[in-house]
């Protein structure tokens, strides 16, 4: 830079600079520097601190006094913390069940719109809407839907003569988690549908036409042409759905606070409770939970990706 600067500017700059290993360092620093600084300060550094914290007891009431405890927290979490296991079970259930409901439902909805239902564009617009709302908003609306006396859910059951099944959905440990899973389905089915619809529309029409000429029924065209071709999208959406549900916090916080009887406690809500609501006032223990959960999410996401994509490779 500087050398080129010193020459009289007769020639355009490119002519004086030999192409080669000289890097525009100043520009790189300018473009990447601010991002890197923020990323290091707000993402990398806190992660390192969390790892460090997980080996210590860290008393908030004593002005953040550190005391080294080694792997003690991890031993306690895995060995004797029943709430953690309950929460991990709930999060895993949510993470594995939700994609199994969300993705097939979204796929069926996408196929319906692909079959040129009248007003398809209008329906697509409406179905996508729930994903634009915040969890607290969705949570409050669904608290009302599940209300025992006048909620929509029970109203509907009573209307079709199944009034015997009407119940306080969020009050019993058996139904609370399924009720919350239904809420996330309501939120994300339209979103997944839109992505899948785009994937289906990207399939060359000739393939489907050729199959039709060969006499393949609509059902078989779906199974043998559409499904294999949108499979990467299906897998991708399932993994994203899984990760999202493993992090689930806000909906639970607003609707049930993890109750009844830890029936909807997730790992994320448990971490927050241990850090700020329990009287232990120790940040080390919840940090250890976070580290553990981080490892589990990463391992499972990687495993699922490998598993689902391996099957794909075997198909061809």
């Amino acid at each position, binding site marked *: 830079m500087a050398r080129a600067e010193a020459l009289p500017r007769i020639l355009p700059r490119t002519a004086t600079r030999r192409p080669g290993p000289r890097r525009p360092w100043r520009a790189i620093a300018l473009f990447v520097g601010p991002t890197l600084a923020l990323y290091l300060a707000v993402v990398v550094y806190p992660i390192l601190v969390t790892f460090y914290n997980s080996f210590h007891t860290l008393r908030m009431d004593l002005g953040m006094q550190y005391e080294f405890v080694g792997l003690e927290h991890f031993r306690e979490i895995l060995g004797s913390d029943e709430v953690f296991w309950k929460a991990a079970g709930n999060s895993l259930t949510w993470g594995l069940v939700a994609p199994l409901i969300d993705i097939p439902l979204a796929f069926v909805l996408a196929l319906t719109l692909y079959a040129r239902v009248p007003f398809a564009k209008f329906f697509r617009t409406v179905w996508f809407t729930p994903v634009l709302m915040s969890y607290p908003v969705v949570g409050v609306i669904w608290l009302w839907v599940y209300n025992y006396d006048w909620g929509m859910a029970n109203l509907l059951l009573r209307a079709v003569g199944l009034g015997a099944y009407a119940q306080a959905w969020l009050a019993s440990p058996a139904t609370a988690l399924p009720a919350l899973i239904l809420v996330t389905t309501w939120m994300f089915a339209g979103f997944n549908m839109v992505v899948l619809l785009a994937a289906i529309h990207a399939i060359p029409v000739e393939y489907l036409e050729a199959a039709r000429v060969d006499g393949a029924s609509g059902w078989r065209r779906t199974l043998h042409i559409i499904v294999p071709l949108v499979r990467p999208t299906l897998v991708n959406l399932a993994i994203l759905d899984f990760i999202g549900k493993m992090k689930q916090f806000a909906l639970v916080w607003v609707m049930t606070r993890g109750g009844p009887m830890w029936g909807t406690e997730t*790992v994320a809500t448990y971490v927050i409770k241990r850090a700020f609501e329990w009287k232990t006032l120790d940040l080390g223990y919840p940090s250890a939970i976070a580290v553990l959960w981080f490892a589990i999410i990463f391992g499972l996401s990687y495993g699922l990706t490998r598993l689902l994509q391996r099957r794909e490779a075997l198909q061809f």
Partner: protein
Amino acid sequence: MRRLRRWLLLVPVLAYTAFSAGPYLWTAAMSLRTTDEIYRSHYGLPIPAHWEKYHAAWTQFGYATYFRNSAIVSVASVLMVTVLGAMAGFAFGRSRYAFPLREPLFLLIFLSLMFPPQIMLLALFQILVQYRLFNTLTGLVLVYVATELPLTIYLLRAFFAQIPQELEEAARIDGCGDWTMFWRVMFPMALPAVATTVILNFIYFWNEFLYAVVFITQQRIRTLPLAIQFLVSDQYFDIGMLATGLMIATLPVLALYVFLSEWFVKGMTAGAIKG
């Protein structure tokens, strides 16, 4: 026959539409009715419509404040993440700016999309307290920008990487330095891609709850999602007013969505499509 079948498909489609839109429409109806009216019949139509409830929510129930906080945080965060993300995406995407370890660094940034927020949350709480940024909107904005940078960089890098080399050279021959070239030539070209990230990020910031609930404990700087969570416990029985609040929190986004639905769909799904 085929036409008939297409119309028959409307039956499940309408059923799903009722499920999808019903709860929200019900809330919208309740937002225009007084709580007394609602307790008398939960599914009545909003006749007469009590539009004054919106005014009451705005002035007496603090929604003006919460709305302002949400707007400040969302707009500031979007501006910052767009500028930083576009610059970084540009440097990560063009061969001219290759520097040692650039690809592993990008991979690390990209991987952090999968990190559960808890892995940073508690330490961030400590750090924010330490640097007097706890309970400030500034602290919240810094955290928001950092958490949305990875996806923004990822999306914009893909766009900048495919701009032809000739264009870059042409700009340089015209005497543009790196800075001028970026803002005068490259950034304007990337505006469609930038628009999708703006929408995606804005909705994320507008609706974010976890960081807000941990980092903000004072009422006067609560954002809308936070306010709603507190109002649920404070005025559980004032359903009518709560419904009005929910509408205030969602209408700005939904109004924009009605006008720009294609952009919204593109923006929101940008992170989900394998590119």
